[in-house]
């Protein structure tokens, strides 16, 4: 079904269940769906697994979700940043689990979930701590590691524009994880700066086709 336009971020995140796996787009602040994360905090779902490139900055957004104790586990490539003190403290206190995934595997495993790939072999991480315990196989003389898809119950992504059907375009490097996460979750919720009439986006430039998007909300600040 084509996307539903929501009047407010609270409507957009309604129904997210405790225990859900939530894919959260963005790389640093670029493409980060801030309104949706804030709404998720108000919504109250807990015991979440959050899949995102980072583990929050400062004390807003993902960091605020973590600070509220709603996150059981973080799957990311780079939890530590200059101002990731909320995550750091929770992690050192043993109050949040961490799965560190090489950034390329993170992107490709999310893509695999969306593309119907059951598992794939890739050389990244072979012979390192992050491949310990994983199945390996030598292909063309090179050690490959078997990686499994990462699927979300929900994806929260930020995009630049949506049309009323839910087709999305992004802007510059804010595109990052949004397009793959949009393919890999049962319910995909997009925060955009602008909703435009269907037919006004050039079909050649649509990056996330409407089939992937369930709910759209315009940014409060926009």
């Amino acid at each position, binding site marked *: *079904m*084509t996307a539903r336009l929501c009047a407010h971020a609270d409507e957009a995140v309604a129904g997210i269940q405790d225990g859900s796996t939530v894919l959260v787009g963005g790389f640093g602040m670029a493409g980060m769906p801030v309104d949706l994360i804030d709404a998720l905090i108000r919504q109250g779902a807990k015991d979440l697994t959050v899949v995102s490139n980072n583990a929050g900055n400062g004390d807003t957004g993902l960091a605020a979700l973590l600070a509220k104790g709603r996150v059981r586990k973080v799957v990311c490539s780079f939890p530590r940043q200059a101002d990731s003190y909320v995550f750091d403290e929770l992690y050192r206190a043993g109050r949040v689990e961490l799965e560190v995934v090489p950034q390329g595997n993170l992107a490709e495993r999310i893509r695999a979930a969306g593309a*119907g790939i059951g598992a794939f072999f890739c050389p990244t991480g072979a012979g390192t701590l992050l491949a310990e315990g994983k199945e390996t196989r030598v292909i063309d003389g090179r050690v490959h590691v078997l990686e499994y898809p990462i699927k979300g119950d929900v994806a929260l992504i930020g995009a630049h524009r949506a*049309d*009323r*059907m839910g087709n999305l375009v992004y802007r510059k490097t804010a595109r990052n994880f949004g397009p793959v996460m949009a*393919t890999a979750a049962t319910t995909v919720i997009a925060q955009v700066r602008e909703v435009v009439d*269907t037919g006004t986006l050039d079909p050649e430039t649509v990056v996330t086709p*409407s*089939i992937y998007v369930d709910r759209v909300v315009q940014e409060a600040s926009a």
Partner: protein
Amino acid sequence: MNPDRPRAHDERRPLSKHDVAAVLARDIPHGAFVNLGIGRPTLVADHLPADSGVVLHTENGMLNMGPAAHGDAIDPDLTNAGKVPVTELPGAAYFHHADSFAMMRGGHLDICVLGAFQVSAAGDLANWHTGAPDAIPAVGGAMDLAIGAKKVFVTMTLFTRTGAPKLVPRCTYPLTGLGCVDRVYTDLAVFDITPQGVMVRETFGTTVDELAGRLDLPLLPARD
């Protein structure tokens, strides 16, 4: 089946292929994302009401495909999977072949409609190869479509021209996919493939008993 849509066909007679397409079209929910295979399945598009909201996918890289193009509207860069010139509707999107098949294989299409040589009671599909020793095999996207959509609908005649059933206990033609068919639309009846067996949803100019006598498999009456 949507009871509040009018029936175009006469239920006392077997359906034409256009009637079968109309019956199938009636069962596609509003706003569904659908891929119509080449041949009979393509006819379904002609029977979708203008306000159906149905979005058609073509595996050669497009969503929201419009009707066939004619005259000046023909653009060699815009065809469907059967290489027929088509048009684009507002809200369309183009993507490359790997993205298109990822969409299909990742389970994002609501319904895929395929033709068939045979469907088995377990929902196995045979639609790509007659198995004849001199046949040149050609599969296209059939195997990907068969395993990828949320629901796979087949449209075919129930019997071959020589009277052999095409809904069979086990396929004798080479398979396209295992246990992948959900529903079969034919000139004589519509069947659901269920874990309990083949269930007759509707008959056209025949009865469940008559069909049971002509098919080599048990038939369950429709639940409702």
